[in-house]
C-alpha cells in the first residue's frame, strides 16, 4: 500500500518537505508582482498630474538631471554590491558577505541622503507638497520609493547583524537572497521613475 515505486512513475525518493527556498522565493516574487501595481498607480497619478502645476514650478524649471543621474547611478551600483553580497553568501564567504552588505546599505543611504537634499532644494525653489497636484504626485511617488529604500536599508543592516552574530540561516527567516530580490526590485522601480518622472518631463 505504501509502495513508493508506483508513485507516478517516479522511482526516486519522494520528499514530503518542500524546498523552503523555493517556497519563499515564490512568495517574494508574487509580492513583487503586486508591488508593480502599487508603483504603477503612483506613476500613473504622476503622469495624470504632470502638467497641473497651478502656476508653481514646473518639471522643466525644477529638475536637476545631472544630480538625479548621479543618485540614480549610486542606486544602480548598490544593485551590483547586493548581487556580490549574494554571490559571497553562495560561496559561503562571510567576510565578503559582510563587506558587500555594508556597501549596499551605505550606497542606499547615500541615495536617500540625495533624495532628502533634492526635496529640500525643490522646496526652496517653491515646490511644496501642497503647491500643486504635480507637486503632490511627484513627492508622494518618489517619497514612497524612498520609503522602500529605507526599509531595504533596515533589512540589510539586520542581515549584517545576523551574520555577525552567527544567526544567519538558510531556509528560514530573512535571508540574503530574498532581501536581494527586494533590493533589486526597488532599483528597477527607480529605473522606471528616473526615465518616466524625470527624463521624459524635461
Amino acid at each position: 500500500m505504501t509502495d513508493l515505486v508506483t508513485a507516478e512513475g517516479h522511482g526516486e525518493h519522494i520528499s514530503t518537505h518542500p524546498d523552503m527556498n523555493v517556497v519563499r522565493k515564490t512568495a517574494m516574487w508574487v509580492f513583487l508582482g503586486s508591488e508593480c501595481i502599487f508603483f504603477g498607480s503612483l506613476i500613473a497619478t504622476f503622469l495624470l498630474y504632470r502638467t497641473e502645476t497651478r502656476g508653481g514650478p514646473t518639471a522643466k524649471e525644477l529638475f536637476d538631471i545631472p544630480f538625479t543621474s548621479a543618485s540614480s547611478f549610486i542606486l544602480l551600483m548598490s544593485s551590483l554590491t547586493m548581487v556580490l553580497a549574494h554571490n559571497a553568501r553562495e560561496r559561503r564567504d562571510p567576510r565578503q558577505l559582510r563587506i558587500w552588505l555594508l556597501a549596499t546599505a551605505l550606497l542606499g543611504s547615500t541615495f536617500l541622503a540625495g533624495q532628502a537634499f533634492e526635496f529640500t532644494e525643490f522646496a526652496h525653489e517653491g515646490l511644496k507638497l501642497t503647491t500643486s497636484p504635480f507637486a503632490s504626485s511627484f513627492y508622494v511617488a518618489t517619497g514612497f520609493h524612498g520609503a522602500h529604500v529605507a526599509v531595504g536599508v533596515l533589512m540589510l543592516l539586520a542581515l549584517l547583524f545576523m551574520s555577525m552574530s552567527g544567526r544567519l540561516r538558510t531556509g528560514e527567516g530573512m535571508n540574503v537572497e530574498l532581501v536581494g530580490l527586494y533590493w533589486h526590485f526597488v532599483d528597477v522601480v527607480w529605473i522606471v521613475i528616473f526615465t518616466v518622472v524625470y527624463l521624459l518631463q524635461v
Partner: protein
Amino acid sequence: MAETVVHEPHQHRKHPTPRDYWVIAFILGVITAAEVALSYMDFLGFGGPVLLIIMAIAKFAIVALWFMHLRFDLAVYSRLFVVGIIGAISMFLVVLATFAAL
C-alpha cells in the same frame, strides 16, 4: 513535491561570476550616461522619448534577468513578475486613456 510547477526542468545556464556582475554594472552605467546625454538632445523630437523608454526597458531587463537571476531561476518566478508588470502597464494605460492624458 514530486510534480509541481516549480519542478520544471532547470535551465542549465552557467551562473555569472563576480566578474560578469562588474561587466553588467558597467553596461548599466554606460546606458545611464547615454540616457542623460539623450535627455539634452531636443533635436531628436519624438525619437528622443522613444529611445529613452527603450533604454529604460533594457536596464530593467538586465537587472531583472541577471541581478535578480530570473534567467537562471525557475520560470514560474518570471511569470509571476511579468503578470504584475503587464497588468500594471495595461491597466494604467487604459486609465490614462480615459482621461485623454497620454
